[in-house]
């Protein structure tokens, strides 16, 4: 009698593989069946229609001279040229602190690290940069490597040094950028109204993120604190009010209206500081809602387990709940921070000379009439580079932390 029961153990087979020649791949994916052929043709025509004029313009028609002629303005606004070394010092220190943090937290050399070290080399290829700039980029590279090496040899028990290094960097950066007082021999004060271009955009985004993140986490905790109705109500009111108004109205409020409400003899508050405050307060409300989403994703069992081993409420939040909640919302938070970076361009509408504001100044110069496309394409490219960097590094951080793995 035929048996359908296996009499010996089934042998292990290799998984099926699909291998194509180049033509075979093209045929399978692009040409067959007939509707794929049609789609390929239509798609090809569309690409041609878009890229031909775009590339023709970029390589033959565009007056790219506007960019190198105004590169300093675009990069740092009216920040005095004789003080530009301070900006480079800020970048060197960033490379040092960043490399150090990297060395402390990640002990493996991966593709992300190689990418990070490739960036200065790629920038050296930009044709408009001077040799001085290229030399400085080389120093950035060297300083970053030194920081990384220091991080690698820092013992694991001293990981908190990385945090201290970052905080020290923040202070040094502010000191270098702003200087001490007017007429000081080495560090004369550079008032914030001279800060501009990419420098200002990056600073607004950077400090907006650094300040709004902790504020947002506190608001999220406040909103979920059911045992403290007063704090909860304040958090809800704040979040819902801020989310109910557009950022531009907050910016107008801070730049134009605020001074009208204050007493006449009240000293003028720094314009950049006001814009930064508006951006921070705005972003914090969104951070709060994103973090709240993360908090809600933590099962009740985690709170119970923490309580059952005797952790108090603060320890439970710090050691158990927040690490898991924040890890879960990294992708959302980074998306929001990328949005914040691009939203800083709104400050151009209230009279600050960020990247967009400077672009408008350049375009108003009669020498460069009619170069809107060149200038806007260039600043769009800058925005894209930094947004993509944030997005790329967040994916690397997610991988390192194993987001979505458990």
């Amino acid at each position: 009698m035929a048996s359908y029961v296996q009499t010996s153990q089934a042998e292990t087979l290799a998984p099926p593989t699909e291998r194509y020649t180049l033509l075979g791949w093209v045929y399978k994916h692009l040409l067959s069946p007939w509707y794929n052929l049609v789609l390929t043709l239509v798609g090809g025509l569309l690409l041609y229609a878009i890229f031909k004029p775009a590339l023709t313009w970029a390589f033959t028609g565009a007056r790219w001279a506007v960019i190198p002629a105004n590169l300093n303005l675009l990069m740092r606004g009216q920040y005095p040229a004789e003080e530009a070394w301070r900006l480079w010092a800020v970048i060197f220190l960033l490379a040092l602190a960043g490399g150090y943090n990297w060395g402390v937290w990640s002990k493996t050399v991966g593709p992300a690290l190689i990418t990070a070290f490739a960036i200065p080399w790629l920038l050296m290829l930009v044709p408009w940069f001077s040799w001085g700039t290229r030399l400085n980029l080389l120093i950035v590279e060297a300083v970053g490597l030194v920081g990384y090496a220091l991080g690698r040899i820092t013992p694991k028990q001293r990981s908190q040094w990385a945090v201290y290094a970052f905080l020290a960097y923040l202070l040094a950066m502010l000191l270098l950028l702003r200087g001490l007082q007017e007429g000081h021999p080495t560090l004369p004060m550079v008032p914030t109204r001279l800060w501009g271009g990419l420098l200002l955009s990056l600073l607004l985004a950077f400090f907006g993120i650094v300040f709004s993140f902790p504020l947002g986490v506190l608001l999220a905790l406040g909103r979920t604190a059911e045992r403290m109705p007063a704090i909860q109500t304040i958090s809800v009111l704040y979040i819902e009010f801020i989310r109910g108004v557009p950022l531009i109205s907050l910016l107008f409020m801070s730049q134009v209206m605020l001074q009208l409400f204050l007493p006449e003899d009240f000293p003028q508050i720094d314009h950049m500081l006001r814009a930064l405050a508006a951006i921070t307060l705005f972003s914090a409300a969104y951070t709060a809602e994103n973090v709240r989403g993360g908090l809600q994703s933590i099962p009740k069992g985690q709170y119970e387990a923490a309580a059952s081993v005797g952790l108090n409420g603060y320890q439970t939040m710090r050691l158990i709940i927040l690490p898991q909640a924040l890890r879960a919302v990294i992708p959302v938070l980074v998306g929001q921070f990328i949005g914040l970076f691009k939203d800083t361009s709104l400050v151009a509408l209230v009279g600050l000379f960020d990247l967009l504001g400077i672009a408008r100044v350049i375009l108003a110069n009669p020498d460069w009439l009619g170069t809107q496309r060149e200038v806007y394409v260039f600043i769009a490219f800058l925005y894209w580079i930094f947004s993509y960097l944030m997005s790329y590094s967040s994916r690397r951080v997610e991988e390192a932390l194993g987001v979505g793995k458990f």
Partner: protein
Amino acid sequence: MTVHTPETVQESPSTEHEHIIVCREVHKWFGDFHVLRGINLNVKPQEVVVIIGPSGSGKSTFIRCINRLEEHQRGDIIVDGIPLTHDVRNIEKIRSEVGMVFQQFNLFPHLTVMENITLAPIHVRKMKKEEAEALAMELLERVGIPEQAHKYPGQLSGGQQQRVAIARALAMRPKIMLFDEPTSALDPEMIKEVLDVMKELAQSGMTMLVVTHEMGFAREVADRIVFMDGGEIVEVGTPEHFFTNPQHERTKLFLSQIL
């Protein structure tokens, strides 16, 4: 219809000092639903009490009241001489004396096995890290998985996770261990490894309150079995009494359904 009437409890004050858990007339409501309807139960040190009963009988709610994961609304619960009240200090004190093991393990997924176990000793007992890690290794040996110390919970099987959860609770050197259906979420072939650890723990003299459906475990390990139904204790007795000569109709019905 409880076997322990208030009268029988009033006899006990003379012996109260030798009870590590005292529950008097414990009531609790979820909204309008009366889950616990006057629970009286005293537990002596080193005693193993197994609580059985149909689902919804309030047995999990009852043991969760003992470390205040649920708040009882009437009656007294006194654990190791400390009354459970709204006083936060008492609650934290009791929680560090009472270990708990959950049905869903509730390990901390972002921490390694070692970190799961050493977290509370370091942050609550203020133990040194090296000391806590030595303790954790000792406990992992005891539950039989020292080689898993540096893995994350997600990399372990259910049975291994539950044994880590037991080690985590033991790391606080508790006087009492509560088990809330510790094997109900496990695949059948992993139940035994967890029950073996619990048996060893019982033999070592730990005071244990165990909610379970494992009748074999109850028969072998329990000093007393408590049968709960409809939010009250229907019958209390030795395993011998329970499995050979149950008195109450509801007990008989329940046992006939599960055995």
